[in-house]
């Protein structure tokens, strides 16, 4: 089973990936990256990272045989390492981040690397930690909107990862993001807990702006299940894992 379907990545889209602690969705981000890089030699990807390190991206990519040696193809932007030049590091607290600066930086990089026919992939991993670390909800929702607008302008695909810590109720940030997204990819743990054969399941929901289109939609009842492997995941329909068939 192939997930995601290749045409999920057409430009101007915002794919919102939500996950929970028992079933993290980092494998999906890595998989998107690998598939994107495999598409063409000049494919570009920008990762705005909050928690994961560059080391891990590279390590998983090498295990999955995705080619990341070319420096242009994958640009890693550590949000906490970017400080606008005007700020004096000695004065403010260590972790003050300027979202506006990140936005400008990304905008510059995207316009620099525009190639005809190429859809850049922008991954924001993850937006929830920014909220937990003190960025206000207002700033974050504006940042998300601005990023979306930027990606629409630059013909890029934006992938945003959000952690759900209170499962049945959507938190305020999730509500904002849901309004913006084209597709909501939900990665959920199994209700019966962890298992060796199935690590979790994936559903895809339509965002509010998509009318009527039913392609790519995977409902919760017929969710696609996956099992993590060393560098990726194996996808299968419910009841068709290798242990059963």
């Amino acid at each position, binding site marked *: 089973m192939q997930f995601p379907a290749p045409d999920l990545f057409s430009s101007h889209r915002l794919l919102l990936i939500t996950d929970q602690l028992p079933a993290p969705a980092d494998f999906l981000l890595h998989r998107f990256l690998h598939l994107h890089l495999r598409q063409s030699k000049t494919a570009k990807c920008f990762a705005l990272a909050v928690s994961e390190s560059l080391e891990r991206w590279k390590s998983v990519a090498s295990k999955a045989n995705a080619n990341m040696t070319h420096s242009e193809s994958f640009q890693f932007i550590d949000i906490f390492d970017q400080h606008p030049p005007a700020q004096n590091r000695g004065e403010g607290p260590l972790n003050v981040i300027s979202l506006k600066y990140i936005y400008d930086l990304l905008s510059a990089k995207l316009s620099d690397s525009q190639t005809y026919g190429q859809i850049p992939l922008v991954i924001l991993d993850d937006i929830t930690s920014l909220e937990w670390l003190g960025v206000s909800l207002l700033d974050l929702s504006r940042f998300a909107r601005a990023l979306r607008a930027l990606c629409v302008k630059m013909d890029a695909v934006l992938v945003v990862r959000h952690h759900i810590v209170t499962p049945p*109720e959507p938190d305020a940030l999730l509500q904002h993001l849901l309004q913006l997204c084209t597709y909501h990819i939900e990665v959920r743990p199994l209700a019966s807990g962890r298992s060796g054969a199935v690590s979790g399941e994936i559903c895809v929901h339509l965002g509010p702006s998509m009318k009527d289109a039913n392609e790519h939609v995977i409902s919760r009842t017929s969710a696609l299940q996956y099992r993590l492997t*060393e560098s990726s995941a194996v996808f299968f329909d419910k009841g068709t894992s290798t*242990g059963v068939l």
Partner: protein
Amino acid sequence: MMSSFKRKTLSGRANLPQGTRLSPFSTSTVITSTGIPSLDDILGGGLPLSCSLAVLAPDHHSAYGELVQKYFVAQGLASGQKVCIVHDEPLRFAREGIWMAGNTSSTPAQASTAEDADDEKASQHDDKIKIAWRYEQMKKFQTTVSSNSLSDDLCMSFDLTCRIPATALDAARQSARLIPIDVDIFEDGTGVIKQIEELLSNGTDGHAVRICIPALGSPHWGDMQPPTVLTLLHSLRRLLHRHPNACASLSLAPHMCTDTWGGPGWVQKVGWLTDAAISMSAFGANPSLSSLFPSHHGIVQILTLPAPHTILPASDKYSTLRGLSSAAGSMGGSGENNLAFKCMRKRLIFETLHLDLEGGVTERRTTPSSNAMALDGNMVHETMPAAVLATEGRKGSLATVEIAFERSKEVVSDSPTSRAIPDADDSLVPAKPKKPKKKVAFRSERPDLYDF
């Protein structure tokens, strides 16, 4: 003619810091022992360098979190690694540390206390039980991991009754392997992070560094708010990514280990911002649980597992205690084992947790369970995640759903068990009737459906 082929030596081995080894799962990961063999097993062989481990122990009356940290410090000192203790009185914490029993510090776990002797006798007795011939060849189910013969020199066996000798402490201090960082000087966590950063950037001449924070959030840290704690966890994690020869283990103060302190989803947030996190919920406050599981002191909940270079955590493939490895892929999955811990006189171990013969979910029933009605009539949620520690506060915010049946049935259900949202204890213990079985007054027009 001499063969010109030379066997390639594992040159990587020579460059590993003392007390560490390559992870069998991923050769890019270097792991080190936490001092507790069963905890190492849960983590997938050990704690990888560049990872942070958070141990939450919500019980106010015990100090299981600090106990795990004592093992961590002792293992670091015994292996010759650098140990940095962040505490309000770090040297006092170090002086009260544990050590190996007697003079034979290099032999693997052979502790034979009275309790262990009893355990051994019990297991020998079990061997004499007639096992169906089909299963005779199978290995006995392992409920715990005592010591790994591979890593004799990596995980010492520590004795809780032995205090660290002053000579070992002094030697460590003099060779700058024991580095204390005081907490009360700083106003919030950022000062601590700066000091740790300085320590790590000054170079460690090839040693692995262990950073231990035994009581994050104790009164000496001042009035810590949830965002401060999260910022500290996040900064620590980033520091470790930048200095991959270091690892960290921390315990949150007991009052900070539950959602009641940090708000809804707090425990999960801690799990997201650390590389590895476990929660040790002691039975102390709950007499029904301690009577259910008399030989254990609490339940272990795994929040996050370390996977610094791979997608799949090493623990999923290698942990004997969790039991996923035998199931992965080929023969299709059983769920993972429940885990518990017990603190004996001389050591702390993590074990698998099983219900006893009576009243477990494997019991064959011939009459419907008295709890069966509760599940039928109150299906508000399609999922009841056991991993989330539900708080009482959340009940009020959920919409109440009423389900009306087409045919009128008289349904009698136990009121305590018909709550749609189980609290943390219930969700961990499967439905076991604690009272004598009631007669279920349930009339259906299709009685054959419910005949077991």
